[in-house]
């Protein structure tokens, strides 16, 4: 019964999400929503990685903006300065980010809890400073990054980029969903549950931590590449330490223990920032702060879990009402 409610609600969410996704980019939606949806897609990709790492494996990273940025900068520099094919640039960026994550993963995951948090934060600060110092363009960043294209078909409008980014995003979501419900996914959740117990049943804790870290960094790198090729401009400020914090906010707001929660988390944070609060001028950040607090106070497990439990509650209410109706019908 429980399982079936879960399944049903699952499909309904995914189907409605897909319908919404298909509807949004067309003309009856105001044009710039496409732009915002592209950003949501990109942010979702970074957030999914963090959900896997923080929500499933229980390992925090406050430096994800670094990997997001490394992806973006590799893509930008390779495709603009060295005139590489953007797809190739994106691939190299992902491999480089993965390799970097792998190399630092082993030492850094000897740390736990808030030491891990501060170490990843430090990593983020270092990489951020180096972007401003060593990368071409310095603090002003790189402009004129070429679009991605397939054959002669260039992703040069937001409408086209929308499908590109959400295509990527859905693949990332599905892959992550598959992993979570597999042998590897159970190993990750076991590490979250108890590292000692996980070791005792033959799970190589260190290796799994590093593997999932590498995967989530590759997601971030892909997202960064997409950002670079969509915005045509990147600068270090898009990858500052605060961005890492915001990624964590998105993951927690959506619901850490669910892959699809990432869509909600990224969605609400991006929408708040880029659209919903625009009319409030200088009050914008006050309201933003308030909303962050309120969501976490009243939906501590995130939007997704809240929606799920609300759905179940509503369903219960409906069943009770129907039962009452039937009973009354029987009486008369």
């Amino acid at each position: 019964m429980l399982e079936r409610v879960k399944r049903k609600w699952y499909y309904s969410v995914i189907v409605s999400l897909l319908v919404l996704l298909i509807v949004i980019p067309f003309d009856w939606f105001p044009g710039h929503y496409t732009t915002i949806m592209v950003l949501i897609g990109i942010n979702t990709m970074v957030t999914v990685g963090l959900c896997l790492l923080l929500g499933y494996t229980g390992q925090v990273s406050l430096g994800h903006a670094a990997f997001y940025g490394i992806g973006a900068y590799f893509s930008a520099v390779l495709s603009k300065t060295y005139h590489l094919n953007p797809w190739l640039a994106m691939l190299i960026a992902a491999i480089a980010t993965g390799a970097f994550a792998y190399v630092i993963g082993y030492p850094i995951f000897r740390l736990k809890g808030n030491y891990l948090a501060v170490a990843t934060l430090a990593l983020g600060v270092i990489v951020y400073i180096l972007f401003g110092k060593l990368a071409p363009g310095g603090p002003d960043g790189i402009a004129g990054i070429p679009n991605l294209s397939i054959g002669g078909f260039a992703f040069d409008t937001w409408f086209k980029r929308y499908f590109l980014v959400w295509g990527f995003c859905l693949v990332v979501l599905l892959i992550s969903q598959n992993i979570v419900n597999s042998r590897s996914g159970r190993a990750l959740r076991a590490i979250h549950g108890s590292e000692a117990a996980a070791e005792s049943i033959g799970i190589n804790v260190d290796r799994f931590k590093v593997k999932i870290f590498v995967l989530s960094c590759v997601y971030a790198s892909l997202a960064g590449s997409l950002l670079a090729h969509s915005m045509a401009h990147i600068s270090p400020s898009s990858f500052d330490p605060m961005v890492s914090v915001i990624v964590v906010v998105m993951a927690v707001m959506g619901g850490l223990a669910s892959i699809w929660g990432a869509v909600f988390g990224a969605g609400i944070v991006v929408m708040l920032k880029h659209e919903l609060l625009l009319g409030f001028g200088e009050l914008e950040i006050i309201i933003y702060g308030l909303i962050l607090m309120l969501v976490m106070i009243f939906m501590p497990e995130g939007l997704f879990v809240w929606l799920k439990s609300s759905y179940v509650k509503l369903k219960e209410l409906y069943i009770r009402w129907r039962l009452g109706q039937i009973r009354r019908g029987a009486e008369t």
Partner: protein
Amino acid sequence: MSADQFVQYFISGLTMGSIYAIVGLGFTIIYAVTRIINFAQGEFVMLGGMLSFYLIKSAGIPLAPALILSVLITVVIGAIMYLLAIRTARHASVVSLIIITIGAAVFFRGIAGEIFPWGVDIVRPPYFTGSQSIAFLGAYVHPQAFWIIGTTVVVMILLHLFLTYTMVGKALKACAISPVSASMVGINPRTMALIAFTLAAALGGISGVVMAPLTLMSYSSGFMLGLKGFVAASIGGFKSPVATVIGGFTLGIVESLAVGIDWGPFTSAYKDVIAMTVLLLILLIRSGRLAEEERMS
């Protein structure tokens, strides 16, 4: 580097380190008692500094009472923040509570940019005792720097005594070691959490009012100050006040000497990189020992 210069770098590092240390103390207390990383800690500092300027310049209150009042208001804000935002979130996990503190930080920043008459401009409250720098061991030191270092050391000692010799202090410590056992002997962890937040806000307020004359303050200064304080606290291992202050000093002196040691024209450009690398090295070297300790307990 001449000897005079070395002293100058060292004292400069000590001054910055004191700032990081006292901000870090707030992190340590809240973390020890509640396991929350309080992202609003830097905002307490900002509020302390901004309020002191407001009370002195706009409300015309004399220096000493204005400073005390600023700290008191910050304390009240800290307590309210705990009661309204942290305590009401009963079923929230630590991660969710950390996000709440992020929300609170954004909220405080927004409020500070909005309610003060100077809006988003930078401000500088008056120096406590003039601006004529003092020659000291071949270096020149701003009188306010002595205030900053002195306050940090005094606060550290007081905090240490408080935690060691008072009932409340001991209860806080017990709660930090094990909330479950503490509650078994009748210590209410929620009261302890309230005290921790109040103390942290007080520390933030104090650091804010002491540093603002030298470092200047604007509504957006909080985040980066908080970050450095967090780093100082983690070098100290989130343990005792003394360890945290040593952590702060280490960070400050490393930053300062990174500028002083000449290895090319761009040294100062990389000082934060150097400081963060040192932090990483300290954490990694210590990680082996930390793991061992964890198994012991």
